[in-house]
């Protein structure tokens, strides 16, 4: 356990909590600026099993915010290149790789096998699918998104918190994309760090934040926003705590 002594030295993390992390499995959907760092933080923190899924290949324009990858990874699968780095970071963490998109065919099985799902995707359609499957399988998931100098995160726990459809009832056709308005490379690490902290708390059975974290790093604005569960939500409306 020497590897984790700076972590278990925290008042918030006991050696038992650390052992708990080793027994957990996290599904990371998307391995861009968010998912890549998320996977690294989780492996370094001692999570026992990570499942990575992404169909994209590493492009030059990714490297300004993919902190675990470098020029030798250009053209290679993001999921496989990330897995190779993670295995060098922590051999104790088991890594599964899926070179495909998260979709209706594989989604339910992948979510069912995970203790926590972390969002590293770049689109809302996939997030609505994650939400639907996670509510159905009663699996918590941590939403994270960023564009420009803005980032946001919310920890969805079925039966305990609102779901994504409570928060965004209608699917927006058009939202700003990183390709159009850019992304400051300091923003994804803030989102990812918040997501991973919440995921670690979930895995350790500790209380998580029940508010939307929304920030603009450029403007130094950090907000927590109350989000209420919608009783008539088509996804989680009938789901109540046992």
């Amino acid at each position, binding site marked *: 356990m020497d590897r984790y002594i700076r972590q278990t030295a925290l008042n918030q993390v006991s050696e038992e909590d650390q052992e708990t992390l080793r027994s957990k499995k996290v599904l990371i959907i998307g391995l861009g600026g968010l998912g890549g760092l998320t996977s690294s933080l989780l492996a370094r923190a001692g999570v026992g099993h990570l499942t990575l899924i992404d169909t994209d290949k590493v492009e030059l324009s990714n490297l300004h915010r993919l902190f675990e990858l470098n020029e030798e990874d250009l053209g290679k699968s993001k999921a496989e290149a990330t897995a190779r780095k993670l295995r060098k970071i922590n051999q104790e963490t088991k890594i599964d790789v899926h070179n495909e998109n998260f979709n209706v065919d594989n989604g339910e099985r992948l979510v069912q096998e995970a203790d926590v799902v972390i969002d590293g*995707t770049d689109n809302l359609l996939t997030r609505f699918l994650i939400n639907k499957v996670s509510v159905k399988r009663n699996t918590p998931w941590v939403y994270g998104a960023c564009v420009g100098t*803005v980032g946001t995160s919310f920890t969805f726990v079925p039966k305990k918190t609102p779901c994504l459809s409570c928060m965004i009832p209608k699917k927006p*056709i058009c939202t700003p994309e990183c390709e159009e308005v850019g992304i400051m490379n300091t923003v994804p690490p803030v989102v990812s760090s918040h997501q991973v902290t919440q995921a670690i708390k979930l895995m350790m059975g500790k209380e998580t934040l029940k508010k939307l974290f929304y920030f603009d790093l450029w403007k130094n604005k950090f907000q927590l926003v109350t*989000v209420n569960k919608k009783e008539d939500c088509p996804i989680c409306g009938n789901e109540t705590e046992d």
Partner: protein
Amino acid sequence: MKIKIKLPEDEKEVETNASKVNDLLKELGINPVSHLAILNGELVTEDEELKEGDELDIKEVVSGG
């Protein structure tokens, strides 16, 4: 009535007859589907009623990653 409104690039007080969040967003030319409406610190749906002195914070839905 007067509503204090915070937009991504602007912050101002507006005089409006809009009774609901959706009506005010339309007045301001903002698409309610691609924005979050935060009324007095709480995320609300577009059919939420407005009242004098409310503070409405409009944020874009963030989807990148």
